């Protein structure tokens, strides 16, 4: 039942891919996520500046890079999906990197809040 080791046969879902709306929506979702990172980056930069915590400012800068990376991943996904071959699911490293960036932001924020309380 489970076609393990069956990578040579293309999945049937590929034959019905639409011309581009789904990849575009997926890229836009990555863009929106990038914008969320930007919002948090601005808050971190402000907090680091006002309270003079270099590590919070550092987080802000990292989140800006994360936002840019998110936009880049959106472009990558669009290109991957535009090729029309291969699995539709994103590689795990993309999701892992996103989770890690957001998680680091959470932990650093808790540390900063506790530190300044």
């Amino acid at each position: 039942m489970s076609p393990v080791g069956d990578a040579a046969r293309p999945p049937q879902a590929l034959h019905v891919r639409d011309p581009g709306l789904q990849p575009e929506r997926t890229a836009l979702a990555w863009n929106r996520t990038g914008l969320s990172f930007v919002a948090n980056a601005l808050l971190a930069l402000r907090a680091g500046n006002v309270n003079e915590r270099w590590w919070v400012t550092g987080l802000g800068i990292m989140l800006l890079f994360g936002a840019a990376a998110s936009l880049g991943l959106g472009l990558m996904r669009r290109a991957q999906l535009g090729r029309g071959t291969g699995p539709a699911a994103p590689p795990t490293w993309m999701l892992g990197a996103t989770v890690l960036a957001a998680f680091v932001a959470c932990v650093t924020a808790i540390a900063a809040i506790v530190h300044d309380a």
Partner: protein
Amino acid sequence: MLNRGWRHEGQEPDYRFSLANERTFLAWIRTALALLAGGVALDQFATRLGPHWVLVAIAIGLAALSAVLCGGAYLRWRSNEIAMRHARALSGTFVIPLLSIAALLAAAVIGVLLLVR
């Protein structure tokens, strides 16, 4: 580690469902980041709103919830993808009502603080 076992089991789902799953993951990440931004903004800007420890508690609570959502986003994506590959129903999650309750509580506390200021 890159070629995880579950990606080769079951059947490749309709690519639109995989992409919808990816966008759902990103929506969870954005929700987490929004909660984080809310918590940080409370701690940073609500200087005249009642006892500071209440705001710190809410801020830390929101940041912690955000961290949980980050990890949960990936786990949920993975579980959905596996369920789709084996043509099983997607599981519900208790996190959505939990999220509503948490947001409601935070809003209620802030509302009370605003009223008794």
